[in-house]
């Protein structure tokens, strides 16, 4: 049906064109503001300068090693949070006793502004890598637990009764109804958690670390080298977009069997 699909395709093309235009306008406006000295260009930097700083830091090898360092912290903190969060969330959903026992801790973590505990965490686990991983883990684990628990609770009671009616065990209910049904909410929790883990990594590196993207931008910021300070931020933005979009794709792929 060309008459039906044609407008859809053209509107999608329009979306892409407009989106690129928006990006180009923003970057161009920034460059123009720096070129025309509307704002002090040393303080403002400009896309060209930031690009040059990116290339310079990359060729010196510091950006690559910082990215690897921060990436390792993120992977460790987020990975641990995903495993612990999903296991704890499922356990809390499956056994009432576990839920009652762990509920206060979850809400404590939920209500406490964890970044405020940063100095204390430094005392407990040490500067740099450990505190970044810990902060990323603590920030990320909460949305995963809460979402997993919510997903188990939201299991369709009709489906549960259907499995039971046909003589299914508790195990069958878990593998056939609860686990597949909870997937979208769990993945949504992971997506939220990824952003928070990244914040944890950055905050952990900003104070007293000696490697990582957060450390690098703090270092250059303190030396008033704006373009050099913005280069790691660009990489962090890229990292955030890649992780978020990756999880979104995974979500779409794993949820394909689901009726719309």
């Amino acid at each position: 049906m060309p008459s039906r699909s044609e407008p859809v395709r053209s509107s999608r093309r329009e979306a892409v064109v407009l989106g690129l235009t928006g990006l180009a306008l923003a970057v161009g406006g920034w460059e123009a503001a720096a070129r025309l000295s509307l704002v002090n260009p040393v303080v403002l930097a400009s896309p060209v300068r930031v690009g040059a700083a990116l290339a310079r830091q990359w060729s010196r090898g510091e950006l690559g090693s910082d990215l690897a360092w921060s990436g390792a912290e993120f992977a460790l903190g987020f990975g641990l949070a995903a495993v612990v969060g999903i296991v704890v969330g499922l356990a809390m959903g499956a056994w009432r006793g576990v839920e009652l026992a762990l509920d206060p801790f979850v809400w404590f973590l939920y209500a406490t502004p964890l970044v405020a505990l940063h100095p204390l965490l430094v005392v407990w686990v040490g500067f740099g890598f450990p505190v970044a991983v810990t902060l990323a883990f603590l920030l990320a684990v909460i949305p995963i637990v809460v979402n997993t628990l919510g997903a188990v609770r939201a299991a369709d009671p009709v489906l549960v009764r259907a499995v039971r009616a046909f003589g299914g065990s508790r195990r069958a209910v878990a593998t056939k109804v609860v686990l597949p049904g909870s997937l979208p909410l769990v993945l949504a929790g992971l997506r939220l958690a990824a952003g928070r883990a990244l914040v944890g990594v950055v905050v952990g590196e900003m104070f007293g670390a000696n490697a990582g993207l957060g450390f690098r931008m703090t270092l250059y910021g303190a030396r008033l080298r704006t373009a050099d300070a913005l280069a790691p931020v660009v990489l962090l933005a890229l990292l955030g977009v890649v992780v978020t979009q990756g999880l979104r794709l995974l979500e779409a792929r794993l949820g394909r069997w689901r009726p719309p």
Partner: protein
Amino acid sequence: MLLGWQAAGTWGPAHRGIGATPAEVLRAGLGLLASGELLAHALVSLQELALGFVLAVLVGVPLGLAMGRVPRLGHLLDPLVMTGHATPRIALLPVLVLWLGIGVASKAALAFLGAVFPVLVNTLAGVRQLDPLWERAVRAFGGRSVTVLAKVVLPGTLPAVMGGLRLGLGRALIGVIVGEMYVSVAGVGQLLAVYGNAGRTGELLALAGLVGLVSLAGVQACRAAEARLGPWRRGPAP
């Protein structure tokens, strides 16, 4: 849990300087309050928080509504908003300090950046999931765009907007605290950094508890406002 904590701190392995007992935390908190130190710093932090958050709402909600109602505008700004949303805005802190100085402005800006994206994205999602039937119904009875806005768009997006405000408030608070911890002349975050570096765990935990209470109060206020604004809605907001 509190009793266990106190016992562990008094007799147990959690030795001094690293842990503090609840009694110590309480004493430290009262000491801070009595000296008047806390109040002055808290006022600065609240001012930064209010400035950043209110600006975020004033920008995020109208822009979200506009992007949702005018598809072209939505397409134009979508990639920018999504990139900003995925970036850890805390990372801009060193640059913000360069731009705006070490005073109130840089913290308010960080709070604004932290809050504006959740508010904007939630508002946008709220507008996009509106049932098109409602608008058609208003139009069929001769309603104009203003009527659609007042009767369909605003009430329909309210739960999503309030969800965004709740999220945004938390982000704004984190922005203020981290901004003050990083470099500042006053504020609760600065106190946190000072007592943290001095190893005074009691004061540190008392301050963290206070920040937690403020964030809890903010979330409850959002909930109450939501319930007041939409008493006709049944069930909790998504």
